[in-house]
């Protein structure tokens, strides 16, 4: 009971606050420091996109952390992390629609259809939207554990999509995007290896309890 209180009253609010730091930082830069630079729309866009992708990758660190630490506590924060990834992705797209394109739906649609990196970005966002909508516990019951779990496995597609969306936009310097891609690749490889090593255990876990994978 004491541990439960610590998770609910301390750990969750702390992680919630930590996830808001990037937003607070960009707001501080915009309003107080005023260093968004000569192209503030671009600065804000890159910043929000980076954090959506980064939090999505952090969300995928939860399972390995559980396996490696032997504690199931990290799972308690996974939904929140996933929802924050969705939150930053939503702000990223809001910035694109409002500040960059200024509600020019014709241009936005042309971008989505013609520009591969924007097509992938939008598909990624649709996945995140579906996961966010089905994130409440009641939705697990409503969809059924198996279907819910299958749906939430698309988080892998979303994570890969977010990194590709970034890489496909770059002109020459792939260092930062590549670093994120390498971390994500590591997380995916970890899962593949784990599945190959312990096929039985993975099966059992799946049958026993459909745990929220991301949201």
């Amino acid at each position: 009971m004491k541990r439960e209180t610590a998770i609910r009253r301390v750990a969750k609010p702390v992680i919630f606050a930590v996830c808001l730091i990037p937003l607070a930082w960009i707001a501080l830069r915009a309003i107080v420091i005023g260093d968004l630079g000569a192209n503030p729309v671009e600065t804000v866009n890159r910043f929000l996109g980076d954090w959506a992708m980064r939090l999505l990758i952090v969300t995928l660190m939860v399972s390995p952390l559980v396996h490696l630490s032997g504690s199931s506590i990290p799972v308690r924060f996974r939904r929140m992390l996933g929802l924050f990834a969705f939150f930053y992705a939503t702000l990223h797209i809001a910035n694109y629609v409002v500040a960059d394109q200024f509600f020019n739906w014709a241009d936005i649609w042309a971008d989505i259809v013609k520009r591969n990196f924007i097509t992938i970005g939008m598909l990624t966002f649709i996945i995140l939207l579906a996961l966010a909508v089905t994130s409440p516990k009641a939705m697990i019951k409503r969809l059924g554990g198996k279907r819910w779990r299958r749906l939430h496995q698309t988080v892998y597609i979303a994570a890969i999509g977010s990194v590709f969306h970034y890489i496909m936009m770059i002109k020459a310097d792939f260092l930062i995007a590549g670093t994120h891609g390498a971390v994500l690749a590591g997380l995916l490889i970890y899962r593949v290896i784990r599945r190959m090593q312990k096929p039985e255990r993975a099966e059992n876990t799946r049958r026993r309890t459909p745990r929220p994978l991301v949201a």
Partner: protein
Amino acid sequence: MQIKIKKASHISEAEVTPKHLFMNRRHFIQASAAAGALGSILPPGKAAAGMKLPGITQTAYGNGLEQTKYEDVTSYNNFYEFGTGKSDPANNAQNFQTKPWQVSIEGAVAKPGVVDFDDLIKPHKLEERIYRFRCVEAWSMVVPWVGIPLADVIKRFEPTSKAKYVAFETLVDPERMPGQKRAILNWPYVEGLRMDEAMNPLALLAVGLYGEELPGQNGAPIRLVVPWKYGFKSIKSIVAIRFVEKMPPTTWNMSASSEYGFYSNVNPEVSHPRWSQAKERVIGQGYFSAKKETLKFNGYAEEVASLYSGMDLAKYY
């Protein structure tokens, strides 16, 4: 009690001059000595951004255009030699040494040779020209450049009939241009123009902006400005101008030939494969501002469209 007497060679880490200070000092001494020997009319030291350029003739170019703020022109730059972030060049080019500076004139000319920066500029009159500047990334500025017509400089060196193209080359010096420590692009940065493009009166060799010497991040001490082409054609910190018979290689074309052609004329009708070129974000207009329609040849069609008559601009992008 044992008393230790340190030998001079047993100097502690902390007492050694940090390498970067030592190197700076060496550069400073070298630069000063070299500048003195060449009798430069300007004092030695760092790229003296902010130093007023004397005797600038005003021109009618760009009358009525709203100029981008000096602060924005000098803080939002693509100059990968100093880093790939937009603010990297402004941060990393602060102490960029541009004195002394020499430009090598090579190839199909009657008067080749290595020319000191001052000797290259001195015979000409500095002009101020306010030009639109359109980046291939779909943003734009309006910059009051100070420079000399490229055509006048080219004529001085008397190109031969074999000179069909002009190739330009940027300095390679990873110590002074830290972005070159990684092979992001194939250094040196190279660019080129067809001879008739280079001879067009719009083509400018810029040495300043806003009446002052070019800051390092804007391509000090001398750069090309071809306002009807995407910004990357306007090569910075030039150390060589070469007259050649065949179309010379260009850096971004070598990096991604399907995206960046030799001509790279501003054209709203021809998309970059990954984004539209129909509109541009005007730098300095703030967070809530609509994009502006991009003009063909960046608004210089009257001056340059005839250079490309009969050419399929979608094919020769």
